[in-house]
């Protein structure tokens, strides 16, 4: 019974139409389409134009054609049919199989499938666009960093030179302002670089053993002075059970605390600031510390708290209070990177409390009384007259600055090479006690020039000349690259006069001791 019903339904979905070779309908059923005998099939639907090409290229061995899923219309109703064509020299037999229902169901599935693929492609594209944008931003920041640091080196250097001349009180004050503002600018660049590194996932967290007590003592020293200047109280409560030496990223911990203390000092005009450090827990060689920074400053409005750690967010409109809106964003990002947590509570006009938990490790076996590492003092060898330095640098202003610093010491002769090739020519002609090598000079860069000096000469006076690289691209990676390429030390720009002289003296003294 069911079989018979299926057969009836099937026959209701089929139509046979016979057409003459000139396209006139000779005979037709009207199950699907209400066509009439005598109508031109070509006028009914453009699909049938295909018949012309079959007739024109008639091949008795190829007389059967089938076309699945052709869209037709009958009385404004869509019919999707498979069409079979049988051709001979007298007539064409067309068989239509109506699969509208089946194709519509398939259509829904195909629509969903294609839409989901297109959507994922769109997301992929958006993601790619964002990655490219991020890369562009990061390389832009890295480049602009270099471009800004180079003139900044000159500004700071010349201010130091200027400070050593006879200045009036007013000039001294002005040069102090230039120096302070230049340091601010330098700090801003550091912040920008940090935020860009954090966001691009390039900031490496290091684990090193360091004196926790030293860092805290450093804070005590510098912020007590600041508190005295502002006439407010400053206190550090340090849990005596905390190990003196810890293992963790000292630089990033320092940065977090320094940023928060700086902030507290910026926004507190009276009352007190307190840093309390306690142990949350200690297990085997791990411990978690809680840092609580409380101030009695202006506080933060409740509605602003959720946005506190966003980049370039400043709620205080007082232009006397400096800031770039990056500090707390860096604090939050660094805390996350260190697997720590940060919380803030605040009351306007009463003050703010930051609570940070950070994990550390410590060495169980070692005693905590390791000697403090102090900067070792070096002296230039006394049995020699002046020392000859080759400065490889293409920027005139930096050449002038370094010349001025070194010559004013009275211990150095300085030659200048403006690129790597010229440096090679110089060292072949003269003996040098040290080379100061800018990393980005032309022809041969600092790394290539160092490589040639270290590997191409049998003469030890040349191949073992101490080389100090310097660059505005200041990072641990650049420093490592310098050391790996054969340089003896690295000096980031901008540098202080004292650092430059210390590094030169150290290298010359070490070489003399060998």
């Amino acid at each position, binding site marked *: 019974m069911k079989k018979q019903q299926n057969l009836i339904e099937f026959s209701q979905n089929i139509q046979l139409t016979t057409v003459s070779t000139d396209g006139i309908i000779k005979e037709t059923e009207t199950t699907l389409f209400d066509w009439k005998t005598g109508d031109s099939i070509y006028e009914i639907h453009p699909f049938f134009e*295909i018949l012309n*090409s079959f007739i024109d290229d008639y091949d008795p061995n190829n007389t059967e054609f089938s076309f*699945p899923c052709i869209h037709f219309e009958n009385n404004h109703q869509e019919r999707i049919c498979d069409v079979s064509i049988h051709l001979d020299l007298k007539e064409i037999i067309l068989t239509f199989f109506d699969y509208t229902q089946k194709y519509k169901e398939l259509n829904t599935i195909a629509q969903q499938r*294609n839409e989901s693929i*297109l959507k994922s492609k769109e997301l992929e*594209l958006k993601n790619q666009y964002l990655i490219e944008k991020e890369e562009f931003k990061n390389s832009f920041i890295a480049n602009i960093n270099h471009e800004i640091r180079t003139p900044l080196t000159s500004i700071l250097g010349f201010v130091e030179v200027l400070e050593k001349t006879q200045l009036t009180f007013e000039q001294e004050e002005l040069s102090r302002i230039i120096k302070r503002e230049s340091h601010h600018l330098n700090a801003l660049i550091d912040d920008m670089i940090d935020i860009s590194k954090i966001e691009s996932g390039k900031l490496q967290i290091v684990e090193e053993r360091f004196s926790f007590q030293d860092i805290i003592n450093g804070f005590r020293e510098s912020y007590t002075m600041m508190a005295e200047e502002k006439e407010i109280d400053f206190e550090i409560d340090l849990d005596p059970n905390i190990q003196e030496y810890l293992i963790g990223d000292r630089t990033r911990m320092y940065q977090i605390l320094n940023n928060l203390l700086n902030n507290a000092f910026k926004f507190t005009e009276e009352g007190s600031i307190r840093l309390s450090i306690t142990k949350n827990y200690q297990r085997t060689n791990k411990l978690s510390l809680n840092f609580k920074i409380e101030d009695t400053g202006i506080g933060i409005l409740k509605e602003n708290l959720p946005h506190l750690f966003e980049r370039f967010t400043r709620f205080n409109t007082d232009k006397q209070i400096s800031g770039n809106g990056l500090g707390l964003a860096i604090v939050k990002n660094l805390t996350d990177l260190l697997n720590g947590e940060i919380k803030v509570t605040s009351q306007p006009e009463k003050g703010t409390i930051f609570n940070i938990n950070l994990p550390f490790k410590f060495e169980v076996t070692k005693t905590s009384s390791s000697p403090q590492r102090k900067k070792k003092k070096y002296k230039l060898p006394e049995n020699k007259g002046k020392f000859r330095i080759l400065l490889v640098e293409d920027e005139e202003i930096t050449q002038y600055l370094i010349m001025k610093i070194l010559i004013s010491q009275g211990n150095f002769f300085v030659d200048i090479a403006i690129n790597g090739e010229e440096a090679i020519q110089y060292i072949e002609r003269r003996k040098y006690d040290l080379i100061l090598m800018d990393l980005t000079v032309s022809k041969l860069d600092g790394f290539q020039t160092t490589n040639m000096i270290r590997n191409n000469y049998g003469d030890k006076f040349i191949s073992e000349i101490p080389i100090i690289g310097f660059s505005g691209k200041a990072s641990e990676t650049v420093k490592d690259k310098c050391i790996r390429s054969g340089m003896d030390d690295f000096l980031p720009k901008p540098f202080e006069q004292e650092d430059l002289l210390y590094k030169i003296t150290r290298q010359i003294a070490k070489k003399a001791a060998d």
Partner: protein
Amino acid sequence: MKLSKKVVLLGHFGVGKTSLFRRFIDNEFSGEYKVTLGVQIKKKVVVLPDGRELSMIIWDTEGHSDSVQDTRKSYLLGSHAFIYVFDLTREDTYKNLNQDLKYLKKTYTKVTAKIIGNKLDLVNEKEVTLRLKEQEIPFDCLTSAKTNKNVQNFFLDLAKEITNEAS
């Protein structure tokens, strides 16, 4: 004598074949994506420069997801021109273009094959042209079915070309 030419739109799904089809035939556009199942066929009569009328029978085929060889062979029978459409914003719609083109030219030696980069409204024309050149992606025309840029002219030029070949 009545002139009639069959032109088949080919290419990946979602590249805008149906949009070009609708823009050329009915001068309509919809931003909503609707999948084409099988093939839709429509006719448009264009007047050639010599005054003759040409019926362009446009077959808008279901888009493939990988290669043009996935398109049903019967749809390509009796064609005078293929228009291979790709999406200027989706590299995967033209990464196999050279292979597909080679296949079409080898299998259908007498059929004119044209290449269109569509969705020009979504990209910078200069940048995309440069990128396609760098990637050695050939194309005959860049179009926007949305804004109608270059659509009508492309089909009219094609009409002229396929009727000249025939005459």
